[in-house]
C-alpha cells in the first residue's frame, strides 16, 4: 500500500490491485481508482503539459471538469483514445496510459521554452504573429502550431470498435445522480412513469460519496444511499444509467446521452459496442448536475499539487487517497474548511488555512483549532514554489505587508462554486446573476425542465434532497444533519506585492490564459465577453471553461468596468464533455453509412463482375469488363454489340410514379411543359419537367396506360425530388384536381433491350401483345405477358436502336432477365452498364438532366423547344420562360463538339474559348458537358454548353486542357442516325 493510500477510506476495493503503466512506468492502483487517483496514490501529480506554454500540470479537479490532466489511453492500433481526463478514466489491469503535449517527455519538455518566452506569447498571439508573409503560412506557421499546440495525437488507423445508438423515450429524465437527482428519481419513480436517471460516474451518489459526513433521515449518508440505490434498482419503471454523460440538450426535451460501455473493462469482448448514444425524448427534464468549484486566481496557481478543495476531498472520500502529506488550504469560501477537516480527520497534516476574509465563522474557527489547524485570515498566497510539484508557498498579509513561507506538498483552493448551467443553456433556459453567490443561476425555463440542487444554486445535502424531491413533484422534507455549506466572497483580484508582469495567475489552465491576458484583451478593445473569449481563447479548450468561465468573467467585468450581469455569459454548446466521433456516428458506419440501393437484377450483375457507380443512393452497374478489359475497351465492345445486334441493360432504377385520376391528363399538362391531352392510351411521350423558374428539372418517358392513368418515369437520381415537386403542386396549387400520385419505382424491374435483334428476341416470350411494327410502333406502350409474367412493355429507345423497356413486377425481374439473356445467346446478347448507355444516348444527342444541364438551362437552351407547349395557358415554369433574361440572345446553348484531332477525348468540364491566344484571363464561352469516344462514328464526340452556341455552327473553338489546347468544330448534337431510321428495323 502506497504512502498516500488511506485504507478504510473511499468507495474503492483496496483488496484488488490493478496494474497499469503511465508514460511507460509501472504503477499499481486499486479497483475503483481513476487514473488520477491511482497516480496520486503513488505520489504522482504531474500528469500533463499545458497547451500553449507546455507548463507542467497536475489534476485541478477530480471529475469531468478537469482541465489539466489530459491523457491518452492506448488499447492498441486504432484504439488510442486521446484527450481523456485522468480524473474520469477508470483504470483496469494492464492499462497503458500516456501524457500528452510533451516532447520528449513529461518532466523535460522542449516546448516549455514557450513558457520562458511567455512575455512574447500574449493574448491574441496567434492572431498577431502568424500573419505575414502569406507564403509562410503553409510551410512555417501551420506546422509550427500543429507541432507545438496539438492536443493528443489522433489515431490514424481505423477504429476497430463497434458503436451503438438508439432512440429512447421517458416521462422524466434526470441528469445527475447526486442527492438532488436521486431524490428526484425516488419521487418520480412513484408515479409509475418511465424515469431515466443518468450519471457520468461509475455509480450514483455524487456528493454523498465525495463528502459523506452527514446523516439523512437518521441514517448515515452511505446507508441512505445504499437503500436509495436498491429502491431505484427494484423499480421497473426506473432506468439508472451509469458512466453516461448527457452531452447535449436539444429542442423539445431531446437529450443526447453518451454511455461508455467497455472503456473500464480490461478485456472487453471483441466486437462488443464501446459506446452507445441514446437519443432520449423526455416529457420532463430534471437537471441535477451540481456545481463546479472555482479556482482562485493567484500567482503560481498552476503548479502540480495545487487543486480544488472539493477535489482533495473527493480523492480522499471516494478513492481513499491523500493528495499530499502536508496539505495547505487557500480559500475565499467556507466549504473549503470541510475539505480541510475531512483531510485532517484522516491524519493528513493541514499546516494552514489561508482565508482571504478577515472574519471567519466562529464554528469553523473552533473546529480548526480543535484539529490544530492554523488559520491565516485576511491573507493570501502570493507565490508558490516547486516546478513539477508544489513544495511550499508564501503567505502575504496585504495589511501589514508581512510575508512568510509554509512548506506543503499540496495546496487546496476554493474560490466558491459555480452552478453547472451547461445543459440548461443548451436548452435555451434563461439565467440570472446572483450577486451573493457571485454566479449565474437558472431563471425562466425554455423547455419543460427544472434545475434542482446545487445547479439551481441550492447548496448542501438537505437543499439538494428537498429540491430534487420538489422538482419531481414531491413535498417531502428531509431531515439532514450536515455541516453548514456556508458562504464565500469574491474578490476582483487577489492582492499581491509582486508586479503584475512577474505573476503567473492562471484562469484557464488548459489554454494557459492568465489574468493578464484577459486584461490585455480588454485594453486592446475587446469589450464583448464573446470577443474576449475568442481573443484569449479562455473557455475554448476541451473543458469549455468549466472551471474558468466565471473567473474570466469577473476579471473582464472589472477591466471593462461594468457589472458582471451586463457583461453576460458566453454560450455553452454541446457536447458537455469531449465525445468520440464514433459515438455521434453510432451504427451508421461501414455498410450502414448510407443506404445502398440495388435492383433485383443486381446479383446477376455482381456475379458477372460488373463495375459499379453510385447514382443517388443506387449502385448501378457501370460496365461489364471481360478478361483483360479496361473500362474503355469494355464500353466500346458493349456499344458495338448493341448497335450491331443486341444489348441488355438494367433500367430498374428509373423513378416511376403512377398518376391516376380523372384529372390525370390535366395534372400532367400543368406539371410538364409538353402537352398530354392529345396522347392516346397506349402512347408514350418524352416528358420535360421545368421548375417554376423555367429551367429543366427532370425528364423521362411517360406512357398513358388508360384515360385516367399515366406511367411516369423520372431520372434515377431525380425520383424523390420529382415526387415531392409533384405532390407539392398537387396539394397546394392544383388542389381542385382529382388525381393521385403513387410511387411505383420499386414495383417494376425494367429490362431495356436495344439493338436490331430486340424484337426477335422477345417475340417468343410475349403473350397478348402484337409486336409487329405496324401495330406496336415506336413510343408505344402495351400491357400483356412476358415469360408468363404481367408486363408493361414500352417500345422506346434511349440508344437510337430498336428498343423495348420491359417492366415486370420486381420479384420476377431477375428470372425474366436470365430467361432473355439465355435466349439471346444466338444474338450475342451483351449486357451493358450506365457508361455504354451514356455513350449511346450521346451519339443520339439525348441529354442527361444534371450532366448536360445544370439548373440554369431552359428547354430552348437544350434544343428542346419542341417539348414546350405554345398553347397551354399554364404549366410550371411557363411564365418564367418569358423573362427577358431567358429569351435573351447569347445564352449558353447545348451544341455538339468534334475535336479536330480525332485521337483526343475532351475532358468533361473543360472550358471553351474562341481565341486561344487571347490575354489572360480568357473569356470563357462555356464548358464540355459530355464527352465520349464513339465507335459508331469512329471518332470522339462531345456535347457542350456554349454561349450563343446555336449561331456558331461549323465554327472552330478551342478547349484548353492540361498540356495542350484542342481545336473543336461546333455541330448539332444528333451525331448518329439523325433521321432515326435505325428505329424502323423490321
Amino acid at each position, binding site marked *: 500500500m502506497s504512502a498516500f493510500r488511506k485504507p478504510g477510506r473511499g468507495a474503492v476495493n483496496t483488496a484488488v490491485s490493478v496494474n497499469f503503466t503511465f508514460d511507460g512506468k509501472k504503477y499499481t492502483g486499486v479497483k475503483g481508482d481513476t487514473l488520477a487517483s491511482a497516480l496520486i496514490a503513488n505520489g504522482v501529480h504531474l500528469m500533463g503539459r499545458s497547451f500553449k506554454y507546455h507548463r507542467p500540470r497536475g489534476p485541478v479537479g477530480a471529475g469531468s471538469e478537469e482541465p489539466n490532466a489530459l491523457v491518452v489511453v492506448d488499447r492498441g492500433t486504432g484504439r488510442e483514445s486521446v484527450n481523456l481526463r485522468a480524473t474520469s478514466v477508470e483504470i483496469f489491469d494492464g492499462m497503458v496510459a500516456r501524457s500528452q503535449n510533451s516532447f520528449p517527455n513529461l518532466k523535460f519538455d522542449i516546448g516549455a521554452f514557450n513558457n520562458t518566452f511567455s512575455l512574447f506569447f500574449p493574448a491574441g498571439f496567434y492572431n498577431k504573429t502568424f500573419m505575414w508573409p502569406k507564403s509562410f503560412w503553409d510551410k512555417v506557421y501551420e506546422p509550427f502550431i500543429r507541432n507545438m499546440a496539438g492536443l493528443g495525437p489522433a489515431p490514424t488507423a481505423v477504429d476497430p470498435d*463497434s458503436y*451503438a*445508438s*438508439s*432512440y*429512447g*423515450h421517458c416521462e422524466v429524465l434526470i441528469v445527475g445522480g447526486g442527492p438532488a437527482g436521486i431524490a428526484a428519481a425516488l419521487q418520480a419513480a412513484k408515479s409509475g412513469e*418511465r424515469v431515466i436517471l443518468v450519471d457520468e460516474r461509475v455509480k450514483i451518489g455524487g456528493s454523498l460519496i465525495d463528502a459523506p459526513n452527514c446523516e439523512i433521515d437518521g441514517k448515515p449518508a452511505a446507508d441512505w444511499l445504499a437503500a436509495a440505490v436498491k429502491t431505484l434498482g427494484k423499480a421497473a419503471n426506473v432506468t439508472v444509467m451509469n458512466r453516461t454523460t448527457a452531452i447535449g440538450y436539444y429542442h423539445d426535451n431531446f437529450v443526447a446521452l453518451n454511455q461508455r*460501455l467497455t472503456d473500464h473493462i480490461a478485456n472487453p*469482448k*471483441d*466486437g*462488443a*459496442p464501446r459506446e*452507445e448514444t441514446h*437519443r432520449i*425524448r423526455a416529457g420532463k427534464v430534471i437537471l441535477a448536475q451540481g456545481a463546479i468549484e472555482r479556482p482562485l486566481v493567484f500567482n503560481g496557481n498552476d503548479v502540480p499539487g495545487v487543486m480544488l478543495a472539493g477535489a482533495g476531498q473527493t480523492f480522499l472520500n471516494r478513492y481513499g487517497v491523500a493528495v499530499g502529506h502536508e496539505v495547505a488550504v487557500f480559500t475565499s469560501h467556507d466549504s473549503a474548511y470541510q475539505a480541510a477537516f475531512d483531510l485532517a480527520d484522516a491524519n493528513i497534516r493541514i499546516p494552514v488555512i489561508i482565508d482571504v476574509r478577515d472574519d471567519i465563522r466562529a464554528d469553523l474557527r473552533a473546529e480548526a483549532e480543535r484539529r490544530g489547524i492554523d488559520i491565516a485570515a485576511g491573507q493570501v498566497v502570493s507565490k508558490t514554489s516547486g516546478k513539477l510539484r508544489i513544495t511550499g508557498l508564501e503567505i502575504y498579509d496585504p495589511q501589514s505587508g508581512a510575508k512568510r513561507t509554509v512548506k506543503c506538498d499540496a495546496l487546496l483552493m476554493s474560490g466558491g462554486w459555480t452552478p453547472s448551467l451547461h445543459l440548461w443553456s443548451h436548452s435555451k433556459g434563461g439565467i440570472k446573476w446572483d450577486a451573493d453567490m457571485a454566479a449565474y443561476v437558472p431563471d425562466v425555463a425554455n423547455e419543460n425542465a427544472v434545475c434542482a440542487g446545487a445547479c439551481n444554486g441550492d447548496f448542501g445535502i438537505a437543499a439538494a434532497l428537498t429540491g430534487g424531491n420538489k422538482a419531481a413533484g414531491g413535498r417531502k422534507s428531509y431531515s439532514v444533519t450536515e455541516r453548514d455549506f456556508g458562504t464565500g466572497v469574491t474578490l476582483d483580484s487577489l492582492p499581491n506585492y509582486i508586479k503584475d508582469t512577474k505573476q503567473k495567475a492562471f484562469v484557464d489552465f488548459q489554454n494557459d490564459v492568465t489574468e493578464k491576458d484577459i486584461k490585455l484583451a480588454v485594453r486592446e478593445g475587446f469589450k464583448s465577453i464573446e470577443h474576449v473569449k475568442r481573443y484569449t481563447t479562455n473557455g475554448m479548450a476541451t473543458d469549455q471553461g468549466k472551471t474558468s468561465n466565471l473567473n474570466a468573467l469577473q476579471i473582464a467585468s472589472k477591466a471593462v468596468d461594468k457589472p458582471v450581469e451586463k457583461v453576460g455569459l458566453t454560450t455553452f454548446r454541446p457536447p458537455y464533455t469531449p465525445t468520440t466521433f464514433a459515438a455521434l456516428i453510432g*451504427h*451508421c458506419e461501414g*455498410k*450502414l453509412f*448510407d*443506404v*445502398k*440501393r*440495388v*435492383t*433485383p437484377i443486381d*446479383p446477376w450483375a455482381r456475379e458477372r463482375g460488373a463495375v459499379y457507380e453510385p447514382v443517388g*443512393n*443506387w449502385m448501378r452497374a457501370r460496365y461489364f469488363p471481360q478478361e483483360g478489359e479496361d473500362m474503355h475497351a469494355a464500353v466500346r465492345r458493349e456499344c458495338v454489340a448493341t448497335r450491331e445486334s443486341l444489348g441488355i441493360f438494367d433500367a430498374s432504377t428509373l423513378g416511376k410514379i*403512377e398518376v*391516376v*385520376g*380523372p384529372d390525370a391528363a390535366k395534372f400532367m399538362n400543368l406539371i410538364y411543359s409538353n402537352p398530354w391531352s392529345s396522347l392516346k392510351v397506349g402512347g408514350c411521350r418524352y416528358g420535360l419537367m421545368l421548375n417554376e423558374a423555367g429551367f429543366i428539372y427532370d425528364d423521362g418517358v411517360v406512357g398513358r396506360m388508360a384515360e385516367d392513368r399515366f406511367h411516369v418515369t423520372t431520372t434515377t437520381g431525380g425520383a424523390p425530388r420529382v415526387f415531392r415537386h409533384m405532390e407539392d403542386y398537387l396539394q397546394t396549387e392544383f388542389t381542385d384536381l*382529382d*388525381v*393521385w400520385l*403513387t*410511387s*411505383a*419505382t*420499386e*414495383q*417494376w424491374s425494367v429490362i431495356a433491350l436495344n439493338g436490331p435483334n430486340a424484337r426477335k428476341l422477345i417475340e417468343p416470350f410475349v403473350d397478348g401483345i402484337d409486336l409487329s411494327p405496324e401495330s406496336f410502333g415506336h413510343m408505344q406502350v402495351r400491357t400483356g405477358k412476358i*415469360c*408468363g*409474367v404481367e408486363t408493361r412493355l414500352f417500345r422506346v429507345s434511349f440508344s437510337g436502336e430498336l428498343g423495348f423497356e420491359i417492366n415486370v*413486377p*420486381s*420479384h*420476377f425481374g*431477375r*428470372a*425474366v432477365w436470365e*430467361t432473355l439473356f439465355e435466349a439471346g445467346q444466338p444474338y450475342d446478347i451483351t449486357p451493358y452498364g450506365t457508361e455504354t448507355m451514356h455513350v449511346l444516348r450521346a451519339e443520339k444527342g439525348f441529354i442527361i438532366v444534371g450532366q448536360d444541364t445544370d439548373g440554369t438551362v431552359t428547354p430552348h437552351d437544350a434544343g428542346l423547344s419542341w417539348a414546350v407547349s405554345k398553347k397551354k395557358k399554364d404549366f410550371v415554369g411557363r411564365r418564367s420562360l418569358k423573362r427577358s433574361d431567358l429569351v435573351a440572345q447569347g445564352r449558353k446553348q447545348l451544341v455538339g463538339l468534334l475535336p479536330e484531332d480525332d485521337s483526343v477525348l475532351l475532358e468533361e468540364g473543360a472550358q471553351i474559348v474562341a481565341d486561344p491566344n487571347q490575354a489572360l484571363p480568357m473569356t470563357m464561352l462555356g464548358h464540355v458537358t459530355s464527352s465520349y469516344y464513339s465507335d459508331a462514328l469512329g471518332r470522339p464526340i462531345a456535347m457542350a454548353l456554349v454561349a450563343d452556341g446555336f449561331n456558331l455552327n461549323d465554327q472552330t473553338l478551342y478547349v484548353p486542357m492540361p498540356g495542350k489546347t484542342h481545336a473543336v468544330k461546333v455541330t448539332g448534337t444528333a451525331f448518329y442516325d439523325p433521321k432515326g431510321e435505325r428505329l424502323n428495323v423490321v
Partner: protein
Amino acid sequence: MLFNQAIEIDESLNDDVMRLSLSGERVRYSLRLKPADVAAAKKSSGLKLPAKIGGTSIAAGQTILCLGPQEWLIVALPKSREKLAGTMAKLSADYICSAVEVSHRNLQFTVTGPGAARALNAACPLDLSVDAFPVGKGTRTIFEGAPIVLWRTAEHEFTVEVWRSFAPYLRDFLAKTAKDRHMA
C-alpha cells in the same frame, strides 16, 4: 417464373429476444378515395378501411392501414389476388379514386420478441412503448435512412414494410443491433 425476393436473414437475427423474419409473397394496393366517397366505397367494397390516419384493420390474410388522408395501404395474402383485383376494378369503375398495385414494391418483415421495440428504436425515432404505440397502430415513418411502414400486431410483435431496395439496409441495421446485444 421464379418469384425471388432476393434477401436472406442471418441466424443471428433469430433468438428469444428478437427475431426478424421475412414474409412471403403479398398482394398490395395503394388506394385513394375522395372524402365524400369513403363511406359508400367501404360499404360496396366490403373493405374495412380505417378512418383515422394511424389506424389499421388487421384480419386474417388482409391488413389495411390508413397512412394519410384517404390513403390506404392494403396488404393481402396471394390467395386474395383475384378477389382484390376485382374489388379494385369495381371501386375504380364506381368512384373517383386511385387504386395502384404495388405488390412488388415492398418487402415485409415481422420483428418479434421482447427486444423488438428496442431493436427498432435503434433507428426509428417513434416512442414504441405500448402506451404510445398500441397494438393496431400503424404509420409511415423513418428507420434512419429508410422510409418504412410500421404497425404493431402484438405487444412484442411488429410488422415492417419497406421498399424492396431498402430491405438489406433494414436487415443489416437490425443485425448490427443484435450483434451488439450478443457481444455486450
